[in-house]
């Protein structure tokens, strides 16, 4: 089929615009990486614009690795993310499987209880008072138990399980399998894609959260990386301070810290993307 000149013109235009949009998405992260690797002197000399630095230095990263506060924050983030994700995925999957039986008495009432929380919440201060009265202030558990079970994720998992072939359960039960056996031998293996996707979503959201730590944890030694990074970013530039004797993080060190907090997300991102582009999450909330 021959394509008209207008058609070719449009396609060229389209590819150019999309390439530019892709670069706009990528460039800021790339630039932060470059700043973290470039000696500050070279940045100043080149008016900030260094796309490929002549001298690459890992000094900023070396400084961060020796900074016990940052390393502690990294460990805090990893601990909270892993524990909270593990608990969250387990509870969500159990809820989703339990609620996937349409004929179970009380199912609709429980679903309604879950749905209401998506529309109405007590607000920040009552939540703070709750965490306080549970004795969790200043404890990692305040972070582990915030956002552990997302009703949205439960609904996504539930609709995935409901879409598994219906006759599997009957067949399994006829073969003498118990319901627990059915769950472990058939539902869980078949649900691995959705379990993986939801785990990654939980993990990213816990890794990225910072406000809960500021709200519940006054001991900054227990703060996760994102919260420490935020206060680090808010320290003024050394050039603004005048007094050079005070040790403050330079621009490069700040940007190196940004990169360190991005890396885990970028590492799991390809796996995540694999699933959501397949439309696993779309249209599954209804019903």
């Amino acid at each position, binding site marked *: 089929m021959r394509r008209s000149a*207008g058609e070719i013109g449009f396609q060229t235009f*389209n*590819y150019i615009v*999309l390439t530019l*949009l892709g*670069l706009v*998405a*990528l460039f*800021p*992260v790339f*630039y*932060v990486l470059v*700043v973290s690797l470039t000696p500050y002197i070279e940045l100043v000399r080149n*008016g*900030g614009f260094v796309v490929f630095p002549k001298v690459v230095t890992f000094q900023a990263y070396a400084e961060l690795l020796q900074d016990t506060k940052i390393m502690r924050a990294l460990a805090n983030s990893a601990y909270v993310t892993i524990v909270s994700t593990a608990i969250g995925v387990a*509870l*969500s999957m159990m*809820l989703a499987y*339990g*609620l996937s039986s349409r004929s*179970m*008495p009380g199912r609709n009432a*429980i679903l309604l209880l879950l749905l209401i*929380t998506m*529309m*109405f*919440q*007590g*607000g*920040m*201060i*009552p939540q*703070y*008072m*709750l965490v306080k009265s549970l004795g969790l202030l200043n404890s990692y558990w305040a972070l582990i*138990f*915030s956002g*552990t*079970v997302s009703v949205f994720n439960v609904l996504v998992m539930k609709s995935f399980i409901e879409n598994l072939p219906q006759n599997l359960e009957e067949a399994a039960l006829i073969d003498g399998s*118990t*319901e*627990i056996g059915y769950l472990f031998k058939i539902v869980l293996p078949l649900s691995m894609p959705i379990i993986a996707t939801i785990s990654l979503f939980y993990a990213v959201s816990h890794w*990225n959260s*910072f406000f809960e730590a500021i*709200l519940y944890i006054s001991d900054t030694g227990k703060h996760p990386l*994102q919260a420490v*990074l935020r206060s680090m970013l*808010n320290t003024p*530039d050394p050039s603004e301070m005048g007094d050079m004797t005070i040790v403050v993080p330079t*621009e490069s060190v700040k940007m190196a*810290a940004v990169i360190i*907090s991005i890396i885990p997300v*970028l590492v799991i991102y*390809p796996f995540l*993307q694999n699933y959501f*582009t397949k*439309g696993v999450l*779309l249209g599954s*909330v*209804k019903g």
Partner: protein
Amino acid sequence: MKTIAESGRGAAIAGRSVPRLLRVIWKYKYRYLLIAPGLLYILIFKYGSLYGVSIAFLDYSPFLGITGSDWVGLKWFRVFWESPDFWKVTGNTIVISLMKIAFGMTPDIILALLLNEVGRSWFKRTIQTLTYMPHFLSWVIIYGILIAFLSPTSGLINFTLKEWGYQPVQFLTSNDWFRWIIIFSDIWKDIGWGAIIYLAALTAIDQQLYEAAKIDGAGRWKQTWHITLPGIRNVIVLLLILKMGTILDAGFTQIYAMYNPLVYDTADIIDTWVYRKGIIDNNFSLATAVGLFKSVIGLLLVLGANRLAKKFGDSGIW
């Protein structure tokens, strides 16, 4: 006779039904056991805070507790409504939300339309991978990226301005700029993510319509105007309505991560104000009342939005 027989049967069923219900429940015992821990979590961490909402109507003091504090009715709501902050924070919240809707929806739609025209699937996948990525970065990280570009001393844009002989601009502490920074960083973060739902709607359009239009001699613009856009109109309207339903949110974590006292005039929203009044100033009752005020209006807006969405022929969100 018939009615007596029927009522007799009804009574018999009613008599049997309690043990039968128990038997049915027993049949599902493992499912209830599986549901229990998750449900317990929801009850404690989502419903547990509702008890604390009552302090919105009390003169709460932590020493007296909820039961010991005096009942003051709607006092804290009036305090908020009569304070000059009411107009400021409510106005900021609504303005920022409306700006996000007005400037944020079109880029999502355009990206989806452009991606939809791409024939080479590797190219489409690459662009999708790149544009979805920022969605997974936290607001603190994006704040860090913004500093790399906007910092008055070492940001790329200010370096460039200085090179060209201009004065550096204090973007992040300027009331003229801050809202635009909020809007643009929001678009940058979520343009790809927002396009997903439109892309899904686009694939649902009947391809025969395009074939027929081509035979009738319709060009690409006419096809877009008469087939593509009407095909995703319902999704656009639905998303618009849903976004109107969350107009009082405006993005707390984003603004909290990026704002500072110098931009309170343009960027202080209801949620950030509630945080400072409650946690920093220890005025728990006032902060809770304002939070409750926001939640109730928000709930009404969401319910109203869903009704409206149903009126537009779509099935709503639930």
